[in-house]
């Protein structure tokens, strides 16, 4: 009897697990099969991202943003898209497997990988196979380096670092600066490196530099004590918002109130469930996307995203959305048709992409250099009364 119960329970658990997997792996598919009758009339777009695991928040956001764009475009008639996302668990090897799966499926344009580490691996594959590659947020410079068919939607990490230093200098936000960065993260370290060299150039005084890692991102008392001891009046945080929320809390507990300045990874701190937004009062950040902006495009996107997924979209969702629209614009400009091979589309898009100007959620008048870098100006934001307010 007991044995029976055991078997039943384990079956139930297994079933639950598989059911769950199916649910998360498949994006909410509005019009995915809408044009299924006529396969030749649909562009197949693929992407990989961490849909499960510790970085799942980024992969899911980008996938959902892209899906909203695809649904909108399909509803308009004209060019039709079919989107398929594969899970890479923020792992380079799994990302390559996911990429091969997408290739077998017949992917024509690749949205690349959401995060940088898998991005470096899949962009190399896509370069060798000549498939056009436009990732939403894989921001490491190594993703685009030496690959003519790879373009980026987000700023590269170096741009963010020097832009932040320039911004702090121009606006005279702080005279003594402390930096806390995540030592085992290419994103954080990349921004730190360019920030510090730009700061030297501008004679910004950096009084304290401390680090943490994935394994020690709980207690920041030492880092904060060091900044406080050295009299820092501004702390630069080139990190994601989850550890940043702990830093804000612990600084308050210490009775230490410098200015805080973040980069695009800070975006999302206000949507952190149950977060005491008063802690983030006065936090400044450079971000390409502002969910509270009042332009039609943003309002419409935020509304749709909230209806479908019951949360406020972050910058990754906006990047995913923009990628799909940028691809649409480029495909139209290049005169590509869905019956073309991925390689032919790639050659045409590589020609066209540096010539287009694109308006999206994450910037106006974006252009791309032939090397793949995007030009867009980051928006300086400050958090006031629990909402972003533009600083310019």
């Amino acid at each position, binding site marked *: 009897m007991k044995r029976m119960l*055991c078997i039943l*329970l*384990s079956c139930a*658990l297994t079933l*639950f*697990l598989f059911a*769950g*997997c199916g*649910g*998360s792996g498949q994006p909410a598919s509005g019009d995915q099969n809408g044009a299924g009758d006529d396969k030749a009339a649909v562009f197949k777009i693929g992407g990989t991202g961490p849909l*499960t*695991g*510790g*970085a*799942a*928040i980024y992969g*899911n956001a980008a996938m959902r943003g892209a899906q909203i764009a695809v649904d909108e475009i399909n509803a308009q008639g004209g060019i039709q898209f079919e989107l398929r996302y594969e899970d890479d668990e923020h792992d380079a090897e799994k990302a390559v497997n996911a990429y091969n799966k997408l290739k077998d499926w017949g992917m024509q344009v690749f949205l690349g990988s959401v995060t940088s580490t898998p991005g470096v691996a899949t962009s190399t594959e896509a370069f060798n196979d000549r498939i056009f590659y436009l990732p939403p947020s894989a921001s490491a410079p190594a993703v685009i380096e030496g690959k003519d068919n790879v373009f980026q939607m987000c700023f590269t990490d170096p741009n963010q670092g020097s832009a932040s230093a320039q911004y702090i200098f121009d606006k005279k936000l702080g005279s003594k600066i402390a930096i806390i960065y995540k*030592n085992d993260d290419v994103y954080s370290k990349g921004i730190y490196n360019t920030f510090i060299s730009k700061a030297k150039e501008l004679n910004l005084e950096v009084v304290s530099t*401390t*680090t*943490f*890692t*994935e*394994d*020690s991102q*709980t*207690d920041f*008392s*030492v*880092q904060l*004590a*060091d900044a406080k*001891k050295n009299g820092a009046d501004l702390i630069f945080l080139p990190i994601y918002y*989850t*550890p940043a*929320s*702990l830093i804000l*809390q612990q600084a*308050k*507990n*210490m*009775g230490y109130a410098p200015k805080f300045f973040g980069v695009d990874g800070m975006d999302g701190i206000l949507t*952190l*469930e*149950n*977060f*005491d937004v008063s802690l983030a009062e006065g936090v400044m950040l450079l971000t390409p996307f502002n969910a509270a902006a009042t332009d039609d495009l943003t309002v419409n996107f935020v509304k749709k995203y909230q209806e479908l997924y019951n*949360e406020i979209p972050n910058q990754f969702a906006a990047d995913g959305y923009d990628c799909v629209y940028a691809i649409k614009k480029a495909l139209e400009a290049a005169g590509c048709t869905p019956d073309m091979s991925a390689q032919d589309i790639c050659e045409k898009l590589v020609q066209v992409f540096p010539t287009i100007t694109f308006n999206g959620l994450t910037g106006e008048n974006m252009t791309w250099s032939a090397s793949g870098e995007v030009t867009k100006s980051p928006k300086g934001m400050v958090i006031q009364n629990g909402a972003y307010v533009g600083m310019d």
Partner: protein
Amino acid sequence: MTFLSFLISGLSLGSVYAIIALGYTMVYGIAKMLNFAHGDVIMVGAYVCFFATTRGNMPALVGVLLAMVVCTILGVVIERLAYKPLRAATSLAVLITAIGVSYFLQNAALLLWSSNPKVFTSVVGNETIKLFDGRLNISVIAIVTIIICLIIMAALTLFIGKTKMGKAMRACSEDKDAAQLMGIDVNFTISITFAIGSALAAVAGVLLCSAYPTLMPTTGAMPGIKAFTAAVLGGIGSVPGAMVGGILLGIIEIFGKGYISTQLSDAIVFAVLILTLLIKPTGLLGKQINEKV
């Protein structure tokens, strides 16, 4: 003053490690298995408390009790389904299973509660006690954690040393077969061990997230590993050892960060572990048990 404030940070971090390590060491001491899923049971406990207090608007104490009940049931179920069938298997098989259970719990949490981090509301508030004109700040949660840690340690020591059930546990720990021959229900005893260990995990989860309020499906993983290190440092299987190991580990981590390098803090922690094991393989308070042939 910096020294004192580092010491307090270290004590606060260490007491969280200690409270997790108590659960590890208790299960190891009696069932002789490393329950690597312990860190994830902590995470489940924290989520239960989070939903009860934040979404369900229940008082903090009810939330903690509910978390303890859920974790106890979870612990016993895990033991029945995953570990009991392997009672006679090699310890390596059980170890691998425990790692599997750990991944299962993390991914189940991911599906149920999504990967979006949540901010845990501290069950005792975020007040700090300011001393010396605000130059020294002690958070209330740190004090509460240390006190609860001491209470649990004392209660566990008494329970294992003085009660009949505790005696049965010690007997199972020494020799399962002999204990069975003496009329002790070994399976029941081990189940109780898991129940207590998991209830402790719930308390640890609530205190961990009260002190460091980010709650994600992976929240329990790293503190779990660190607490395991603490348990080994203190002498795995020894209840006071877990407490001493946890607090020492926290202090070493903070002092390493503060006085040597923030980059090397983890390397220092684990170097201390390696040194301890080289010099005293049973850990600080561990007992040398001679294998009888």
